[in-house]
């Protein structure tokens, strides 16, 4: 065996070379090839299956990007949970509700939000346009609201639907809609902002985090803008946006050096008129799709086109996806997968169709991304900050369990990492309920992972290629954006063992990247 191994490695290397030559033939100067297709699809979606990669490999960059942009949607393919689209008054405890009633209310809304999380994961897996869901998630993490403050799950769904409607549409319309979104109005205290009693929360964050960026406005601008947003409220009967003229301060304001009796919409238009807004949004999109180091010149160029188009998000995305930096070999595998991308992308790539998305939403929560509950108004910081000791081990635990690299536990898994799921109880008394909820969540993740059947042999056998080594070479490109760090992947390929191979690839540090 010891003598044989160098020989086996030689054969593998030779086959890899043949594969590379073959790939190079497929990837002519104008076409993506399997590697380019994998890169584009995983950067704009949730992983990529071998057949999707095969479909995109013969396309040019331009054709591939257009195909992805043309497939984007404004509506989900799956019906949301029934409560999400129910009309009528918002369920809410009255001013004289007992403590018990309030607790029940908080619990019911938390339960409905769990259903919403499961539905969104299902939608991410089912959609024919993963980019639509990636962008919906991007806006969720840009125009941040958290159910833990907002409470009614129905409002969180309505906000999610708004983000999807404009996901790859008109940023100007999106900004106006997000500002008037009832969940946002609750989250950033717009509903508390009245004439003579301004609350600056939304006025500050809309400039700092949603449009201009810190340093591109003054404290005076914040104070005056807060006055302009007074009177924006929510209709208690329908849960919809309503303008209350009596609460609106219609006096004169000075914002960005301009004087006028601006209202909220006028302030948003003043913000959109400033070049900082396009630059700020394009820079954030660059970090999401291209690399951790935005190229200031390219960002300025793409932002210019984005602004000139009247804020067509497709123009910004097209600019980013066709920028040479997006395709630069040095930028491959430089972005960390978000927990949702890791979980949904792994299921999608390995062609696993779980019966219920909820346990996977909870798994992502345990890795630090609890949908509908970002940690604060700045959202999940993302990038390298997805990875710390706790979250990296939660990611590895999930992947190891999925690949059956470790046996299922006899006792229920510890619930601690799901703590963020309900880390803001309404009252200290709610803590007991929270603990039970966390334990139930952790158990449901374990049960789901125990039930899901990953058949690595069948998955590898379905890859293109004439024999097992060729199939494994193709599969390595499907799973890993860079050469593996550990020797386990090469070892598994040498042994031609698909089960060991998938396991080694999923647990290699490079798998955390895209």
């Amino acid at each position, binding site marked *: 065996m010891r003598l044989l191994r160098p020989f086996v490695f030689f054969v593998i290397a030779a086959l890899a070379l043949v594969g590379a030559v073959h790939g190079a033939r497929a990837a002519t100067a104008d076409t993506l090839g399997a590697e380019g297709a994998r890169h584009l699809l995983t950067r704009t979606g949730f992983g990529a299956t071998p057949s999707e990669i095969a479909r995109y490999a013969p396309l040019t960059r331009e054709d591939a990007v257009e195909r992805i942009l043309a497939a984007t949607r404004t509506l989900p393919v799956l019906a949301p949970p029934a409560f999400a689209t129910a009309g009528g008054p918002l369920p809410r405890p009255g001013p004289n509700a007992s403590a018990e009633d309030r607790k029940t209310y908080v619990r019911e809304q938390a339960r409905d939000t769990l259903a919403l999380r499961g539905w969104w994961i299902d939608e991410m897996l089912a959609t024919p346009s993963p980019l639509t869901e990636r962008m919906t998630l991007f806006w969720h993490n840009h125009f941040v609201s958290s159910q833990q403050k907002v409470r009614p799950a129905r409002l969180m769904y309505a906000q999610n639907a708004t983000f999807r409607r404009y996901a790859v549409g008109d940023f100007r319309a999106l900004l106006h809609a997000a500002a008037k979104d009832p969940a946002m109005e609750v989250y950033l205290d717009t509903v508390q902002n009245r004439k003579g009693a301004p609350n600056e929360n939304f006025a500050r964050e809309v400039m700092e985090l949603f449009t201009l960026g810190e340093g591109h406005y003054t404290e005076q601008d914040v104070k005056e803008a807060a006055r302009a947003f007074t009177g924006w409220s929510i209709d208690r009967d329908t849960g919809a946006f309503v303008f209350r003229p009596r609460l609106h301060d219609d006096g004169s304001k000075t914002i960005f050096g301009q004087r006028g009796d601006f209202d909220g919409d006028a302030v948003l238009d003043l913000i959109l008129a400033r070049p900082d807004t396009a630059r700020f949004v394009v820079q954030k999109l660059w970090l999401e799709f291209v690399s951790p180091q935005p190229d200031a010149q390219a960002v300025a160029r793409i932002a210019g086109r984005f602004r000139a188009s009247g804020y067509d998000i497709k123009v910004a995305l097209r600019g980013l996806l066709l920028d040479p930096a997006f395709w630069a070999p040095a930028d491959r595998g430089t972005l960390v997968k978000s927990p949702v991308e890791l979980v949904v992308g792994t299921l999608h790539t390995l062609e696993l169709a779980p019966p219920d998305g909820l346990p996977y939403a909870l798994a992502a929560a345990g890795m*630090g991304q609890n949908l509908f509950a970002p940690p604060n108004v*700045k959202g999940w910081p993302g990038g390298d900050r997805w990875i710390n*000791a706790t979250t990296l081990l939660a990611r590895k635990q999930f992947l190891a369990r999925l690949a059956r690299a470790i046996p299922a536990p006899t006792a229920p898994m510890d619930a*601690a990492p799901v703590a963020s799921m309900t880390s803001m109880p309404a009252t200290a008394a709610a803590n007991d309920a929270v603990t039970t909820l966390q334990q139930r969540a952790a158990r449901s993740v374990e049960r789901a992972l125990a039930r899901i059947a990953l058949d690595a042999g069948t998955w590898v056998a379905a890859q293109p290629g004439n024999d097992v080594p060729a199939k494994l070479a193709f599969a390595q490109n499907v799973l890993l954006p860079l050469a593996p760090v550990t020797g386990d992947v090469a070892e598994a390929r040498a042994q031609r063992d698909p089960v060991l191979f998938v396991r080694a690839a999923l647990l290699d540090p490079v798998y955390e990247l895209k």
Partner: protein
Amino acid sequence: MNRRRFLRSGLGAIAARPASLVIGALGADMAWATPRAQPAYQRLLILVELKGGNDGFNTVVPYTDPAYYALRPKLAIPRDHVVQVTDRVGFHPALQSLQPLFDRGRLAVLLGVGYPAPNLSHFRSIEIWDTASSSDRYLADGWLARTFAQAATPSRFAADGVVIGSNDMGPLAGSGARALALANTDQFLQRAKLARSEPSTGNPALAHILKVESDVVRAATHLDTSRTLATDFPGTPFGNVVRTACHVAASPGGVACMRLTLNGFDTHGAQAGTQARLLRELAEGLIALQNGLTEIGRWDDTLVLTYAEFGRRPHENLSGGTDHGTASAHFALGGSVRGGVYGAMPDLSRLGSDGNVTHTLDFRSVYASVLDRWWGIESAPVLGGRYEPVDLVRS
């Protein structure tokens, strides 16, 4: 080692210790020739972040100041509800359980802690606190990460520090520090078996992942959390954080610092109930921390400090809350703390044009106390300037 570095660490070694001790132990020439600071990292630092910006004026209440009551017709704590600890200031009623600690001189109150030209953004302001920068300077690394880069922790340590209750590394952020985010020590040790130590190479994201993985392996090798604690920890989120902190503190392969986080202090509306609940959770957690550290014999070599991105505006808003403010009151506690009141209550009758107070104690003076007085590390190189330490540690 370049000359500048040599001089800095050499000076550090001398400045950090009483001269007689240095000369007595090594001789002055030896100390100069061997630029080897021996920081007192057996002394533990625990930072407690009151995330969101706790309202300092309703935490440490200036209950004799008419301006306070004028600014807060609804939110002010009535004088007869205040836990009066001096003839000028008192605690929020939810902090009642901390009074005995103050009376015994093991709890210090730091008033008016802030910095010049304050920034009112949560994110920028916590970055200023975490990197110990001026408000017009941007620094990449946290102040504790810079500390450990200047003076390394012993190799037997499991890590430089751990953060518990947050995914943000805060003052430990930076390429250099060996820092871990921990949720639950038992689970950490169990899952750590999945980590492998590989040399850190490749692009920055990959290098980061490999470093975290190596830190996990190292920490798992050195952490021993088999000790059972008799202390009763509250069942709150912060109580769980404190429990984990005590288990780490009890481990022989220790850490030099921990950062614990309690969330939810951004009280723009309906502040009274929320802040009371959070302060009670804080006080109960701190008492449990004292009990846990006492049980494992580390209370006397632990310094606990609270901090936050900012305090809140003295004038209540009409939502029953308070908007982003500037300077705030903080606590220092521990078996070696010199109790009492430090700094001065900001003048509530002279607010700035934005309605906020001017700080009376620079937060970097508090950090200087940690570096100079607690660990014996020269603070100026870390803090980028000389800040007068607060005399809050018993010698």
